[in-house]
């Protein structure tokens, strides 16, 4: 693929980086990332991946934009309230960077459709807010050998970890084992979240996706990064593969995907 004059200029700050260069930028343009959840984590990730020239971005979300989303979901604007999140996000990405093909899924993912959807992409970003979805994404990614970035946020703290099943790195289930009982999950509306925290953590997820696609640097595998915005502490906690892990352990009992009951948690 030859770069146009416009592309050379658009991506000049990438191309000048030794770790990216023309070759790396070309890789990004030929890559695809699926973002599950076009909300607090997914929209900042989508913005930076689109700006970076990731050639194909898939967006999964069945919800519409609500006024209370705008405090942190900065890709959605006031006139978008009531529109489908995936349409609103696609619209902005198209205007930001015409090099990016955006594929939208106004669906809920479940055991019956997730594998087929993730198969099409090189890297997955989990930007969902609930544990049934997080475990489903983890298990499907492990089964399909798809690398992904997990993240969660609440109040002033966030966490993120990267899982690369083909390199046998610890998975989300290695650390968290099973979803918490639905009754134990606090209402996220009550808990609240600092808007900018979503942006920081979503941008970290995009960073991991780009590094994976470029095959540069060290990924956040085998580590859970914890970010406390109040104390401004970033702390990496080393995690190991769990031999008893239900999906990637020595004798995994989970061979079919599970649709857990939803623990209500609308962020």
């Amino acid at each position, binding site marked *: 693929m030859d770069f146009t004059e416009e592309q050379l200029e658009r991506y000049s700050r990438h191309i000048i980086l030794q770790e990216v260069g023309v070759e790396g930028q070309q890789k990004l343009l030929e890559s695809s990332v699926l973002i599950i959840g076009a909300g607090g984590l997914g929209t900042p990730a989508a913005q930076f991946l689109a700006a970076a020239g990731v050639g194909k971005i898939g967006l999964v979300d069945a919800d519409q934009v609500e006024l209370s989303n705008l405090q942190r979901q900065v890709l959605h604007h006031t006139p978008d309230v009531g529109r489908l999140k995936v349409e609103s996000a696609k619209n902005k990405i198209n205007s930001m960077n015409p090099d990016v093909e955006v594929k939208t899924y106004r669906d809920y*993912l479940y055991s019956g459709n997730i594998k087929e959807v993730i198969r099409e992409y090189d890297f997955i970003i989990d930007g*969902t807010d609930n544990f049934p979805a*997080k475990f489903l994404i983890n298990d499907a990614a492990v089964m399909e050998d798809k690398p992904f970035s997990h993240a969660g946020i609440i109040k002033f703290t966030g966490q993120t970890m990267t899982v690369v099943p083909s390199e046998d790195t610890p998975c989300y289930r290695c650390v968290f084992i099973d979803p918490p009982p639905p009754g*134990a999950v606090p209402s996220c509306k009550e808990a609240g979240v600092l808007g900018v925290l979503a942006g920081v953590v979503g941008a970290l997820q995009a960073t991991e996706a780009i590094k994976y696609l470029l095959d540069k640097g060290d990924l956040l595998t085998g580590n859970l990064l914890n970010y406390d915005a109040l104390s401004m502490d970033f702390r990496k906690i080393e995690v*190991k593969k769990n031999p008893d892990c239900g999906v990637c352990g020595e004798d995994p009992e989970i061979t079919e995907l599970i649709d857990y009951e939803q623990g209500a948690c*609308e962020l």
Partner: protein
Amino acid sequence: MKIQVNGKKVEYENELTVKELLKEEDVDMPEMVSVELNGEILAKDKFDSQLIKDGDQVEFLYFMGGGSNDGLH
């Protein structure tokens, strides 16, 4: 005994179970925490019986949702 909890040094007079430590460390909802003891994830059914000993390193890893409610229903 001296132990480390989430990277910070703390002291307790006597050995205590993981469940007791969660309470001492003011963890409101232990069901929203995964516990790593000296680098290994501890099965939840051992919280009651597993003793924390001098020199142990404990991490409380919190379940965090966040993002967007879209993945499934």
